[in-house]
């Protein structure tokens, strides 16, 4: 069955870049949870960049799964940052208060650069 969300993972040194394309809701949240969990626990990444340029839709189920991965990364001493959000997705981050605990960047490049300063 065709899923309405695609997850693309790319490792750049100790940073895992997660690109989400499509729609993140309760139905598709599990894919994000499993793929990210697997990559974080098996890989050698310290930090995560969530790249959301092609994420067309997100609801509170998406916030839940992102908050969950944030806690996992933070518990391992790493950082999770977000880049390239669409206005509607950004608005949900603001409304939920996640805007205060995550750092936001305009592009993947600036997000990765920002992480390498702190690592």
């Amino acid at each position, binding site marked *: *069955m065709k899923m*309405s969300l695609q997850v693309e993972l790319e490792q750049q040194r100790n940073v895992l870049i997660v690109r989400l394309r499509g*729609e993140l*809701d*309760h*139905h598709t*949240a599990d894919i994000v*949870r499993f793929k990210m969990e697997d990559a974080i626990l098996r890989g050698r990444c310290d930090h995560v960049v969530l790249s959301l340029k092609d994420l067309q*839709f997100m*609801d*509170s*189920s998406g*916030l*839940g*799964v992102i*908050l*969950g991965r944030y806690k996992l990364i933070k518990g391992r001493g790493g950082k999770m940052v977000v880049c390239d959000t669409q*206005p*509607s997705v950004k608005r*949900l981050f603001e*409304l*939920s208060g996640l805007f205060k605990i995550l750092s936001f960047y305009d592009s993947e490049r600036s997000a990765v650069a920002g992480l390498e300063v702190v690592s």
Partner: protein
Amino acid sequence: MSGHNHMKLSFASRSENESFARVSVAAFVSQLDPTLEQLDEIKTVVSEAVTNAIIHGYDGRTDGIVTVEAEIDGDTISLSVSDQGRGIEDLDLARQPLYTSRPELERSGMGFTIMENFMDEFDVVSSEAGGTSLRMKKRIESKKALFN
């Protein structure tokens, strides 16, 4: 556009129907010529309400029925999302930001807050025997109306 229009959808309480429901309502509402932002708000609200019915009303069971109704009256859209599942025990608690009755499911607890923020009117009717019904209204100032 003015006048009166109505639609009703009933579907199985399966999570793949969350996107079906929000896309269908968005297509119906587009008659009012909403902005992209208003359309995103309506899609998000429908998604929250249907997800609540599936997760909380029916505990993830797929044999329940979720009913979505939308009504256009002039420039106002009324939405109702209902289930016949387990009702909400404590409504005041459920409406608190960040509260979730199912912390093990990694919920953000923001569903009600989002619905209340994105709609002009929001009301919940829930009983243990009869399930839960969310009723909401939003005024759409049409782009056409602004330009004319």
